[in-house]
Every structure is written in C-alpha cells, then in structure tokens.
C-alpha cells in the first residue's frame, strides 16, 4: 500500500490543450488524457455502487435487497477494474484504493447523476434505468475499443449492465403502470433525475485524439440510442418523457454537487485515518 497522495485538485485543462489543432501532444499528455477518461468511467461506477449500497437492508422486499446488492457489486467490480487500469496507465504506482480513497471531490470525475442521494425507491429505479441504459450502449461500443484493456473490461461489463437495465426497466414499468400513487411517484422521480441525463452525453472532457484513435467513445454518439432505450420503457410504463431543462454539468471537471463531499467523507474516513495501513 502506498501513502496518501497530494489531493489538491487537478488543474483544469486550458482551452489550447483541448483544441485538436494545436501542437502534437506529448506521450505524457496522452497518458494523462487516457487516465482522465478511464477514471471518469470508473468514478461513475464507484459512486453509483456507493449509493446503491445504501439500499441493502432498506429495499421494499427481500428479493430487492438481493438484487440491489448484486447490481452494486457489479458496479463496484467495474470500478475496481477501471481504477486499477487507470493506476497502470498513470504509472505512478497508485492502486485502486489510492484512487478511490485518497482523491478529494475536486479530483473525482463522475457525473452528477450518480452522486446525489437516492433514498426514494422510485428515484433509485429512475436513476438505475438511465445509468444502465447509458452504460449498456457505452460498454457495447467500447467492446470495440482499440485499447485492449478497455475492450476487455467492457466485454464483461456489458453483460452485467444488460441485467441492470432489465431489472430497472421492469420496476419502472411496474411502478409507472401500478397504482395511481406509484404512477405519480415514478413520474416525479423521472422528472427529478432527467435534468442530469444530458451530462452523460457531454464528451468535451475527452481528448479528441482518444476518440479519433478509437480508444474512447464519443458519448454524444450514444445519445439517440440511449434515449430510445429509455423512451421505450417510459412508454410501456405509461409515463411521459420529462420536458425539463438539463442541469448544468460539471462532474467531469470535478465540479460536483454539495452532496459529493459528504459521500467521500463517509467513504474515505476510515482509510484516511490509517494512512499506509493494509486491510
């Protein structure tokens, strides 16, 4: 195990670095950009797993405790594979745990969608539907990544998220087409989550070289397919696709909601209290 790292925020890229027309980036910069990309996908899965873990012992029925634990475990497994790979790419000796436990919120790259508390079952299912629809299409496309590790992680993950999507879809339909109360609650939940959907399609944090080289997938290209997958469920559930304005994103740049600091304080507290310890 290594000691905690400097957890000061990673500087945001200058606009010059982001444009594709500048000087040819050095190998170190490219490594940094692959690191950023892999960490972003990892953080989505890790933070989603952390929120799903809250449900274990709190679900509406025992079968659902089992299912949500199962989905949380899958997400955690994806996060671990991706964080371990990010550590390799970085080449500075950081392990999955260094990356999970010794970064502050300004260095986390997950979308805002996954980080907010979700202590309402309808909200949990609306979010799971959105996240799993997005991950399904993302991982399906990333199976073809020219990066062998990303392709292999995605090939495994795509099978898992297909189950998550099926599970979420069935619940959204049950709740939407269940009772009057559940219909209203499910619609409200969908309305609450919808503003955070758009950030999933923002690829501005990904270096265009990664996309051009077939390493990364431009999330904007997933938009139609993801919306169509979600829309089919929403229709079957007798619900309405929300007509709401997208919230401003920021997670990919480490600009999070106020809840993120609390999530990390809880998640990291013990590990940070014993730096260098093995568990």
């Amino acid at each position, binding site marked *: 195990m290594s000691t905690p790292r400097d957890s000061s925020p990673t500087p945001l890229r200058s606009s010059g670095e982001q444009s594709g027309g500048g000087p040819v980036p050095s190998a170190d910069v490219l490594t940094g950009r692959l690191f950023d990309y892999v960490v972003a996908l990892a953080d989505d899965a890790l933070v989603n797993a952390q929120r799903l*873990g809250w449900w274990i012992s709190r*679900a509406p029925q025992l079968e659902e405790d089992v299912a949500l*634990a199962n989905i949380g475990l899958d997400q955690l497994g994806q996060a671990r594979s991706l964080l371990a790979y990010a550590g390799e790419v970085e080449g500075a000796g950081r392990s999955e745990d260094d990356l999970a436990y010794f970064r502050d919120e300004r260095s986390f790259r997950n979308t805002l969608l996954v980080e907010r508390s979700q202590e309402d*079952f309808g909200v949990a299912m609306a979010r799971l539907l959105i996240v799993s629809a997005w991950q399904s299409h993302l991982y399906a496309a990333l199976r073809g990544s020219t990066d062998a590790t990303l392709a292999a992680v995605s090939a495994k993950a795509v099978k898992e998220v297909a189950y998550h999507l099926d599970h979420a879809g069935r619940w959204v339909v049950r709740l939407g087409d269940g009772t009057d109360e559940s219909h209203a609650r499910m619609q409200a939940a969908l309305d609450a989550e919808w503003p955070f959907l758009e950030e999933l399609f923002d690829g501005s944090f990904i270096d265009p070289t990664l996309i051009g080289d077939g390493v990364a997938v431009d999330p904007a290209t997933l938009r139609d397919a993801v919306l169509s997958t979600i829309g089919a469920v929403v229709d079957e559930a007798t619900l309405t696709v929300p007509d709401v304005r997208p919230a401003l994103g920021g997670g990919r740049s480490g600009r999070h909601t106020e809840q993120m600091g609390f999530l990390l304080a809880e998640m990291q507290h013990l590990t940070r209290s*014993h730096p260098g310890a093995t568990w």
Partner: protein
Amino acid sequence: MYGNDFGTPSDDPGRGAATDAPEGFDELLATEGRVEPRDAMPEAYRKTLIRQIAQHAHSEIIGMQPEGNWISRAPSLRRKAILMAKVQDEAGHGLYLYAAAETLGVDRADLLDQLHDGRQKYSSIFNYPTLTWADMGAIGWLVDGAAIVNQVPLCRCSYGPYARAMVRVCKEESFHQRQGFEILHTLSNGTEAQKAMAQDAVDRYWLPSLMMFGPPDDDSPNSAQSMAWGIKRFSNDDLRQRFVDMTVPQAEVLGLSLPDDAIAWNDETGHYDFSPIDFTELFEVIKGNGPCNQQRMAHRTGAHNDGAWAREAASAYAAKQAARLVAVA
C-alpha cells in the same frame, strides 16, 4: 442465534401436546427419517418449527443491519465488495428460510408482520452495535462461528426442508467465518492502532457470542421437547462448550486474547474451562432492552413501510397484466 429456539417459556406451543403424534410419526423420528411437508405431524411440532425457522429467518434479515452499517465505510474496495456480498448472502438465507417455513403452511408476509409487531423474535446478538471496522471481523469470526456450531446439527434436523436449507446456509456461513477470521488476522498483524481495534472488537463480542447459544440448560424449558422431536440435537450448554473449544485455539493463531482470565484447558474434562456467564444481560436484550433493539426494529419497519407503495404497485401491475392476458385469450 440463528437456528436456535429463543422463545420464552410462555410461547411454548409444545407443552403437554406431545401425545397427539399421528401414527408412524414417532417411528419416523426414531429411525432418523425425515419429516416432509405432506407428512402428518403433531400440531405442536409444526408450530415449534414455524417459530424456530421464522425466527431464524428474521435473524438473517435483522443481521443485515449491523454489517450493512459499514458497507459505505469499508476501508478498501476489496473489503467493500466482500461485505456487500456477505450481506447479500444474508438476505438470501432469509429467503431460503422463509421458503422452508412456508412449507409448514404459513405465509412469509404474516411472519414478517409478526417480526414487525414484536410477536416473533430474532437473535439477541444483532442488538449490539458495530462501532469499528474490526467488528466486521469479530462478527464473522465469533458470531458466524457460533451460528455454525448451532446450525451444523440442524443439517440433520428431523424436518427435511429446514435441514436442506441448513446445508446451503452452513456452506456460506463457513465462508463468512473464514472471511471474518482473515479480517482480524490482517488487523492483528497490522499497525498498533489496527491491533487495538481488533482486540477491542473481540472484547465486546465475546460474551454476546457465548450468549447466542441461549440460556443455560437448567433454564431452557423448550429444549427437552425439541430434542425429543429431533429438531435440536445438542443442549445449549453442550453447543456453547463446543464453540469455546473451537475458538480458543483460533484466538491464539490470531494473537488476540479472549476477555476471560478463567479460560484454561482442563485435562480431566477434555474441554476448556471458562467463567460462568451472567445471563441477566441476555434476558434484558431478549426483552427489548439491548443497545440497539429499538434502532434495529425502527430500521426494519421503516424499510417495510417506506416500500409499501412499491409492493402495492407490483401487485397492481401483476393483476393488470393477468387481466390483459385473459382479455387477449
């Protein structure tokens, strides 16, 4: 205690009812045959089993809470994954056990109602708080260890569905016990602070684990009937002794001490001696006055009540779907 009968004498349905055994039942028990759901059985046998299996199931469900308490704070991603999987297993054990109870003609929803309104109990051990990460180790090693000692004989219990559920549960519990041992082993070989954390957890969980086996034999009124029926195979005190004998050498391997100066090998008995237990605390915990009784029940009933709308929606949707199928047909 998982898998033991921790009712009070007043809920004993077996009193004076042992004579109503249907023809062949006593013979079946005498030849170690298995009683199956369609077999005739004494009403008191059925009721005792329902109570014991249901309370065993409730223990698995309430037992998710003390460990669930640390999922968000597990100190490594590997430990977090192991802990999530373990708590998931506990929900699964609850499901097997409710299914076993349902073969006796009861309904899971009714059993849960009885848990929620306090008519049925769950293991005393889950009324203790998990204060540090090391408690995940102590629970795995001591609490699951005690549960295994209790449950292994139940794999030969006279009621077939319960015995078969126990075979599956015991395999997973053994795995959990090893994981708990490994957590403590890592802590005990870690920093001074980690070792102190491990010792503190063992100090707090030792006596509550011994109490999981229930009251002493001379104060355990249901035991004789349960043993005659082949539901229980060994007395509370015998099982407790077996647990102590198993645990003392493991504590030595861990390099941790057990908080009882009287523990010593006794050549004459071939067992470890240990201090007499003051059971006042157990009876207080069983009566609802333990450190976490109210919290555990509030959490459980809270989840049940908060989820009612979703369960109602699932039923309403299923009914609509069935009606749609009929309409199509």
